[in-house]
């Protein structure tokens, strides 16, 4: 697909070009939306919000950076705005975990080995629960960094934050998560289980 040509045509109001761009950008937008979806919004609603913003601002796209970078930034900022309104979830306890999440915590506490591949879904759910106790910005940063495997430079491009802010924020957010996880692992000690 000739992306620059499609952008030029879409800017002139060509519906076919807009349709082609939508299909081309959909997987990228969906992956950002799925990674940063607030609890109160559906995936489809947020995807529509992102695309509406993309097409509304398409005239502002100068073409100096790849379209995908620009779209990624618009998507991340839209998700961040949606997340800002979301309240931070208070700390959760051992009793709040599902059975699968309990297994993950037990395995983390009992061994230094990597988690079993069949525990990955439980691990993802547990990470989501842990992330919900962070502020929206911190939550997004750790998702980008650890779940999507983005580099600091890529996060800088996507969010507009400077490198030192990203590093400091990531460090502090990780510290918070580490404390939460350690607390959960301590709750899983035999003395707690005996109660």
């Amino acid at each position: 697909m000739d992306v620059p040509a499609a952008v030029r045509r879409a800017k002139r109001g060509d519906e076919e070009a807009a349709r082609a761009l939508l299909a081309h950008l959909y997987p990228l937008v969906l992956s950002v939306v799925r990674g940063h979806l607030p609890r109160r919004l559906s995936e489809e609603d947020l995807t529509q919000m992102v695309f509406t913003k993309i097409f509304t601002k398409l005239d502002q796209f100068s073409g100096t950076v790849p379209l995908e970078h620009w779209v990624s930034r618009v998507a991340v900022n839209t998700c961040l705005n949606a997340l800002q309104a979301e309240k931070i979830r208070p700390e959760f306890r051992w009793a709040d975990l599902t059975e699968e999440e309990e297994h993950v915590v037990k395995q983390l506490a009992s061994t230094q080995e990597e988690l079993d591949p069949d525990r990955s879904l439980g691990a993802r759910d547990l990470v989501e629960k842990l992330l919900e106790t962070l502020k929206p910005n911190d939550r997004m940063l750790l998702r980008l960094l650890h779940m999507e495997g983005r580099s600091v430079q890529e996060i800088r491009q996507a969010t507009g934050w400077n490198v030192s802010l990203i590093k400091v924020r990531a460090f502090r957010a990780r510290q918070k998560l580490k404390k939460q996880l350690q607390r959960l692992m301590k709750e899983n000690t035999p003395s707690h289980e005996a109660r």
Partner: protein
Amino acid sequence: MKPGDNALDRLFRAAANAPGQESCRPSPALQAQILATWQHRNPAEEFTVMLSLFRRAVAVAAAVAAITVLLSLRGDDSHLQLPAMDSMVLDSVSELTPLP
């Protein structure tokens, strides 16, 4: 590396490897909604709307101007006359004091 860091990193690695939901194409309904919103905000359409608003504004302004001119031509303008300017000017001159 501290044990807490290690556990957190292992947790993140396992979570990142979790299979994602597959969906590579937008649903027709979503596609239609997005394109409808986009067309509604199409700049060409906005320009047409702005042009029509501008035309209406010009027509209204012209009508108001015409009515004002007509009223000013037909109406009694005696109340608009200022007090005698000649006497005011003379009074102000008489109050001037000569320089030493």
